[in-house]
């Protein structure tokens, strides 16, 4: 089993993701510079957070058009796993790996906070180690994290159980007040049609060890590892 963490100019959570994979979860991973491309097949690709290309044009817009993304898309088409975190989520949406887009927060400022998430789907390769409805805690750090998609797409995502996480309060109630960025239906984690791509704004790699205040995010990586092992 081997993971790749894709590094663009301006990625800044790439090493955190590597640390979690290698040191916390104990799996092998390569940091792959986007210009070098992939020299082998990987079981999972992580597109990390950061500010690729300084968020020029729109967050993720430029990175999406780099040649390496064609390989990420064909990797995803083959059914293998892609986890897009924060800027990686924006890139995943821009690439069409998941529908919709992550755009400027309702109140247009950068939010850096710890939030509660409710696990909406616990049957995906990313969430199988959570309980459905479980309340978990992770940090968010973004200015363009408001999920927007046409109403019929959002209905479809809800119907097809493709919403992985929603912002909620401490009790797990999905409320207006617990929605930090104005995202549609409090959605902050979206799965692709075959559930092998997860685009999420919160940072599980920053919440994978108790010493960081929460290890709730670790089970995303562990779920991916369990999914790959089971294959």
């Amino acid at each position, binding site marked *: 089993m081997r993971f790749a963490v894709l590094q663009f100019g301006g990625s800044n959570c790439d090493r955190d993701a590597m640390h979690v994979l290698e040191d916390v979860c104990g799996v092998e991973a390569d940091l792959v510079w986007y210009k070098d491309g992939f020299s082998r097949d990987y079981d999972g690709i992580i597109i990390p957070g950061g500010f690729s290309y300084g968020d020029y044009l*729109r967050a993720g*817009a430029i990175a999406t*058009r780099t040649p390496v993304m064609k390989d990420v898309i064909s990797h995803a088409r083959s059914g293998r796993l892609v986890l897009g975190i924060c800027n990686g989520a924006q890139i995943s949406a821009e690439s069409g790996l998941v529908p*919709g*887009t992550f755009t400027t927060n*309702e109140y*247009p400022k950068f939010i850096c906070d710890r939030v509660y998430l409710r696990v909406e789907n616990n049957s995906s390769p990313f969430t199988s180690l959570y309980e459905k409805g479980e309340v978990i805690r992770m940090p968010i750090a973004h200015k363009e994290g*408001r999920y*927007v998609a046409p109403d019929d797409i959002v209905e479809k995502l809800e119907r097809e159980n493709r919403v992985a996480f929603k912002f909620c309060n401490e009790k797990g109630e999905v409320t207006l007040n617990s929605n930090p960025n104005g995202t549609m239906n409090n959605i902050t984690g979206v799965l692709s049609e075959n559930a092998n791509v997860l685009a999420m704004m919160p940072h599980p790699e920053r919440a994978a060890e108790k010493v960081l205040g929460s290890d709730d995010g670790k089970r995303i990586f562990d779920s991916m590892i369990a999914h790959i092992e089971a294959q």
Partner: protein
Amino acid sequence: MKYKIDITISLKGGMLDPEARAIQHALSNLGFNTENLSTARVFKIDLEAEDKDAARARSEEMCERLLANPVIHSYTIEVRE
């Protein structure tokens, strides 16, 4: 033939424009009460093309493939010689 192209990317009607709302608020702090305010982004491009139609077609392709995100944006293209 050389053409001068203005591509204007705006949010689709009904889309929340947080930046516009903040600007409108700041304007009202200065005593300018505006009824409507929206933001847009203009790309000014010089382009070599066979004719005006070809220049427009290339510009549309640029919008579709990079400059606009079809989920939230609409665009207009103005081509001048």
